[in-house]
C-alpha cells in the first residue's frame, strides 16, 4: 500500500516570512506526479502546485515552490512571503498508482501570525 507522511501536524509562521512543509512518501513507480492541495477552513480543496517526477527542475507557482528529492522520496512545499490567506490545512498527495486514486497525508495545519 502506498504511504505518505506529513510529520508536522501544525506549523505557524509570521506574516511575510517563509515556511516549509514536509512530505515523504513511498512508491514503486518511476514516473509520476505529486500534488500539494490547500484546504482553507470550511472551504474546498484547492490545488496549490504539482510536480512532475521526471523533471529535474522544481515546480514554482508564484510564492509557492517545491523541493523535490526523488531518490529520498521527499516533496516539501515552501511558501514565501506568507500571507493571512495562506492559513489552511495543507495536504500532500503523492503519486497516484495506475488507477489514479490519490492517497493524502494527514495534513499540516498552517497558521499565519499577523
Amino acid at each position, binding site marked *: 500500500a502506498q504511504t505518505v507522511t506529513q510529520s508536522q501536524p501544525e506549523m505557524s509562521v509570521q506574516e511575510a516570512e517563509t515556511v516549509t512543509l514536509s512530505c515523504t512518501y513511498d512508491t514503486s513507480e518511476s*514516473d*509520476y*506526479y505529486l*500534488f500539494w*492541495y490547500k484546504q482553507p477552513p470550511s*472551504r*474546498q*480543496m*484547492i*490545488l496549490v502546485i*504539482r510536480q512532475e517526477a521526471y523533471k529535474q527542475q522544481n515546480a514554482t507557482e508564484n510564492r509557492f515552490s517545491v523541493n523535490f528529492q526523488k531518490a529520498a522520496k521527499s516533496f516539501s512545499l515552501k511558501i514565501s512571503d506568507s500571507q493571512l490567506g495562506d492559513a489552511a490545512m495543507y*495536504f500532500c498527495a503523492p503519486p*497516484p498508482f*495506475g*488507477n*489514479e*486514486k*490519490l*492517497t*493524502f*497525508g*494527514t*495534513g499540516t495545519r498552517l497558521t499565519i501570525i499577523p
Partner: protein
Amino acid sequence: GAGVSQTPSNKVTEKGKYVELRCDPISGHTALYWYRQSLGQGPEFLIYFQGTGAADDSGLPNDRFFAVRPEGSVSTLKIQRTERGDSAMYLCASSLGAPTGEQDTQYFGPGTRLTVL
C-alpha cells in the same frame, strides 16, 4: 468555466435512513472520484469512475455504499441504512482522465457534509 459542484452542501439524516449525494464534474472530464474526509483527517478514497464504469471501488467501506455514473457525467453516491459513523465530509473530484500527464490533476468540489443523528 464552472468547477465541480456538489449537492446538497449539507445533509442531516437519521440513523437507518437512505441518502444520495450528487456530484457534477467539470464539463469534459471523463474521470470522477469520490473521497470521504473525517474531521481532522485527509480525504480517503472511495471510488473512481472512468466514463460510466467504476474503474476502482476498492475504497467503499461496505455494501451499504454504492455509486453510479450512468451517463458518464453526473455521479450519485448512495448510502443505505446510514450509521453515525458515516458522518463526514464527502468530496467529489474530477479530472480529464488520461492515464498519465497533466490530465491527472484532480479538481475538487466543495463537498457535502453528512451528519447522521
